[in-house]
């Protein structure tokens, strides 16, 4: 059992069919479940998973809000984003449209928690479709860098590199917590 458990809401966003649910489910099931047939997410699917913070006895329990990408559901979806703690923007490397709308999705999540810094990652999904890839790692990295995100590439289908972005977010969130503790101490 970990000593302390932090809890945070991790909002997963991006265009429809970029693979948000696949990434979430592969991570959540420890790589035992990849949804083979497409099922459109309606509203928000919530799941939780606890991640240990390396070199500590603490853990972060992630409340993962896998949010529908369809514009139709946006009004409903954003009601679940009360206090976003972390954000994951997913795009499909074979789709220009999905890459181009990352800025829109990021801004939407950040606008729900303007005063606070929210750790974020940019996830380039479907890298197994090498032949059809249209977004280069360079474009991805540049976008990430200019928007304060950490860049990751993964393939949910091949269960490759899916855990890393979640672990990174948990670690960053934990770091923010430690900074806050120091701040609280300084005000005592």
């Amino acid at each position, binding site marked *: 059992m970990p000593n*302390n458990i932090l*809890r945070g809401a991790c909002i997963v966003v991006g265009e429809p069919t970029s693979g948000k649910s696949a990434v979430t489910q592969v991570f959540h099931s420890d790589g035992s479940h990849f949804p083979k047939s497409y099922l459109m997410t309606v509203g928000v699917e919530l799941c939780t998973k606890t991640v240990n913070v390396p070199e500590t006895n603490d853990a972060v329990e992630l409340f993962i809000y896998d949010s529908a990408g369809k514009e139709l559901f946006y009004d409903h979806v954003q009601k679940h984003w009360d206090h976003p703690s972390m954000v994951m923007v997913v795009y499909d490397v074979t789709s220009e449209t999905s890459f181009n709308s990352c800025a829109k999705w990021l801004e939407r999540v950040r606008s729900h928690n303007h005063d606070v810094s929210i750790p974020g990652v940019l996830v380039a999904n479907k890298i197994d479709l090498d032949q059809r890839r249209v977004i280069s790692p360079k474009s991805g990295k540049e976008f990430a860098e200019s928007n304060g995100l950490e860049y990751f590439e993964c393939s949910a289908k091949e269960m490759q590199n899916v855990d890393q972005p979640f672990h990174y977010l948990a670690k960053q969130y934990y770091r*923010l917590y430690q900074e*806050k503790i120091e701040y609280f101490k300084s005000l*005592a």
Partner: protein
Amino acid sequence: MFDLALLSAGACIAEVTSSDVNYPPENIIDGTNETFWTTTGLYPQHFIISFTSPVLIQTVEIKCVNVKGLLVDRSVQNVPEDFERIQKRVLDHVEGQQQTEEFQLADDTTAQHLKFTITSGHDHFAAVYRVHVNGRAVHQSM
């Protein structure tokens, strides 16, 4: 008039929604502003202070950081349940110092338990350093 929210006066924390072993909720009622309890992420968060016997309360003061929405409820039962709302506030963010919020309560406000709920914060994490509850024990006729 005494401060009733003190471990040394027999008060205790009956319930809390999150805690870091290094910054436990008992720090709220240990009599100093030097120590604090911290939330560990997400809102709402709450803690309940229980007194040894029913008390008559005049004022309540809370010293905290990053708290935005705050609710105060009281219970007059032996066990901490059937809470009713006595205060609702929105606190401003103050950079670099503790927030101090004082509540004047209606005459004859009695309580066996007080519940403080942080419904939202100015940051991912909030801290509470101290709660003062000024009042006196209710003398009950047997």
